[in-house]
């Protein structure tokens, strides 16, 4: 670890915190339907969209209607992706002549993108056409991100409203998020990325003759426009197979730094939106602090482990850290930081190969995802995931003093706690259950690339990433098989929607409740005690759930490595 490495990490955190308040203010205006500086341009487009789609923007929806609208929207999104993948051979924008994608891979990819996972069983440049990249993937990057944000806003309204039956209008929330938040940032961001060197072209792959006379086919495409939204929307699906490690997806140290910022900015700003909408920004800062504590701890461990290297490298006298599967322009610190950010948020883009990380360095990304990606988290999804843990923490605090717990003026009762537990328990059921299948079912076992405990970790990582809708991978695992295409798709589906539906049920039930003014007996939820309590609840619930699985994978691998054992 070096001083300059830590300075990069600190600079990163400072900029994220600095962006949180102004962006949170702007987004609050957007979600409240107020005028913003972009309204003169965008308002006519917005009104036109409502007119032709038959949306009455004044009519709000019950939480159940809101959820059904969201589900219908995803059915359509699924059909579009599946359709263009199956038909890409006969559709335009296919200069590389890619043939139709197989049924199981198309199914997996369609589920993967509507759930904001972007698991890459497809190899971008070797499998899919420009049309699929744009209409299938880029478009769903926008819409799954907008959906996540819309759902978080609906849950926030549950907390901020009193005695109301409705939580907002899904169509309006999605349209406004797309038009006023995601698109304007992406337009500027895309140009920045092209300036840094990311291609943006519809031309065919380039044929080059290298200095030594060999032929090199260089894949290009409309890359920058997709990378912008893949980062901002915490989607993470790469245009290329190697994702943000590919020099065309992430050419410079600056593009890398800005990409890391764009993974966290919207998610961090949403904590401020929460504070503003419940009438006290300190509530938002308290939640951001919980996230910050867990984040810094993770960065420190991964950075230390990667800088330290492996015993194999030490034995050969190689210093400078674990550079296997990393790029020179990012080095140890920017690769470690990126890995922690991308798994703390549910982004899943990678600028280094996590499979080649040290045992402990790779364990932190795994833990981040197993905690439910609540450290900033996916845009929207992170906030509603974190609020579920807050509900539990408040419940625990209430048990300690024997008083009905309250949070931002709402009584937290049996229904909310049951729903929160349902959402939190469904995740380990998926990733632990499927991992158990994956390590005994022969066709699945054949997919492991590494032997020993590392192979087990590959399987655990895959199902954790899918359930958490992250999309990063220990990529040695051969995922494009019939078993993994279907098993991972089921994990992604359950991980997304069985978290959303309970969260929306909580939103509906909270919105209907009366608001209770704070009294002398109210547990203050803006101070250090609250932050400590939430961190504790997260670590205890997480630790009890997945520590045994970690012991079988990265922990035993670390001990084996120190004992000089290789597999």
């Amino acid at each position, binding site marked *: 670890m070096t001083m300059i490495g830590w300075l990069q990490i600190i600079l990163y955190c400072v900029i994220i915190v600095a962006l949180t308040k102004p962006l949170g203010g702007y987004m609050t205006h957007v979600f409240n339907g107020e005028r913003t500086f972009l309204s003169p341009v965008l308002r006519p487009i917005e009104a036109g969209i409502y007119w032709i789609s*038959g949306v009455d923007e004044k009519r709000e929806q019950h939480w159940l209607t809101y959820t059904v609208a969201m589900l219908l929207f995803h059915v359509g999104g699924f059909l579009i992706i599946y359709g263009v993948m199956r038909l890409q051979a006969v559709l335009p924008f296919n200069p590389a002549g890619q043939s139709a994608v197989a049924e199981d891979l198309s199914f997996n990819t369609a589920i993967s993108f509507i759930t904001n996972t972007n698991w890459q069983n497809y190899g971008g440049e070797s499998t899919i056409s420009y049309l699929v990249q744009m209409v299938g993937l880029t478009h769903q990057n926008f819409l799954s991100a907008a959906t996540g944000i819309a759902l978080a806003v609906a849950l926030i309204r549950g907390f901020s409203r009193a005695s109301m039956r409705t939580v907002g209008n899904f169509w309006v929330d999605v349209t406004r998020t797309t038009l006023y938040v995601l698109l304007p940032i992406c337009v500027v961001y895309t140009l920045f990325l092209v300036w840094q060197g990311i291609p943006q072209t519809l031309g065919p792959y380039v044929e080059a003759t290298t200095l030594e006379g*060999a032929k090199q086919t260089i*894949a290009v495409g*409309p890359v920058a426009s997709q990378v912008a939204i893949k980062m901002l929307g915490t989607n993470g699906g790469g245009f290329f197979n190697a994702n943000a490690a590919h020099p065309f997806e992430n050419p410079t*140290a600056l593009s890398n730094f800005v990409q890391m910022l764009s993974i966290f900015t919207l998610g961090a700003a949403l904590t401020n939106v929460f504070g503003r909408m419940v009438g006290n920004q300190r509530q938002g800062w308290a939640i951001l602090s919980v996230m910050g504590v867990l984040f810094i701890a993770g960065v420190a461990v991964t950075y230390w482990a990667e800088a330290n290297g492996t015993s194999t490298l030490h034995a050969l006298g190689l210093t400078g850290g674990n550079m296997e599967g990393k790029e*020179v322009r990012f080095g140890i610190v920017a690769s470690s930081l990126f890995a922690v950010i991308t798994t703390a948020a549910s982004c899943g883009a990678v600028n280094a*190969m996590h499979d080649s990380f040290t045992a402990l360095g790779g364990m932190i990304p795994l833990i981040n995802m197993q905690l439910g990606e609540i450290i900033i988290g996916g845009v929207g999804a992170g906030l509603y995931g974190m609020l579920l843990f807050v509900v539990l923490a408040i419940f625990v605090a209430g048990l300690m003093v024997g008083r009905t717990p309250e949070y931002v003026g709402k009584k937290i009762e049996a229904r909310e706690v049951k729903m929160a537990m349902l959402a939190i328990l469904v995740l380990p059921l998926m990733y632990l259950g499927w991992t158990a299948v994956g390590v005994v079912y022969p066709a699945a076992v054949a997919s492991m690339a590494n032997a020993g405990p590392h192979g087990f970790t590959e399987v655990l990582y895959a199902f954790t990433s899918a359930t958490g809708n992250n999309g990063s991978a220990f990529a040695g695992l051969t995922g494009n098989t019939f078993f993994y295409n279907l098993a991972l798709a089921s994990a992604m589906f359950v991980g997304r929607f069985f978290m959303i539906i309970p969260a929306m049920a909580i939103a509906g039930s909270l919105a209907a409740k009366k608001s209770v003014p704070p009294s002398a007996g109210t547990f203050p939820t803006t101070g250090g005690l609250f932050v400590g309590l939430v961190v504790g609840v997260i670590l205890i619930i997480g630790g009890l759930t997945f520590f045994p699985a970690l012991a079988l994978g990265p922990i035993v691998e670390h001990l084996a490595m120190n004992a000089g054992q290789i597999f």
Partner: protein
Amino acid sequence: MLREIRPAIVLLLVLTAITGLAYPLAMTAIAGVVFPEKAQGSLIERDGKVVGSALIGQEFKDDKYFHGRLSATLAPDPNDSIKTVSAPYNAANSGGSNLGPTSKALADRLKEDVDKLKAENPNAAVPVDLVTSSASGLDPDISPEAAQFQVPRIAKARNMPEDAVKQLVASNVQGRLLGLLGEPRVNVLALNLALDRAPAK
């Protein structure tokens, strides 16, 4: 609930048209005007022929060129399309080795390469980036130490004074942005093009 069906279809199609077609196509048009060379992939031409991209690494095996990092990229086996074969720096199929920290295959590969490099230049420590494979398999850069390590071999193969090669390396080092972000590095293709332009002695 039934009245949600129309927006589910129409709004989806409208937003698909905006975000999936209008946005990427408009950005392609704008980028093509504002940054035409970068939008095409930062291609480098020599004598009217494309020799590569400034951002994409390519394979160098000849003693007279600086070598890049190991590349684990694959290509379909010409004899059996289900299998793959090693194809370093395949810029149409990026990817890393994905070998884990306790992998025997990785340990064996590292040992073999370290021994080879020690034989080539016994006077310097072997730089770690020269024996590890990159994440993308297309890493265009090596560390300044990895470039300096290869100087004796290049000087001998090209019959140039070592100092001249060293200076060429030094003038091709890109530092950290603002002295802070990223890592110091040397673009291998740019360095080798500079070598080819340098007067032989």
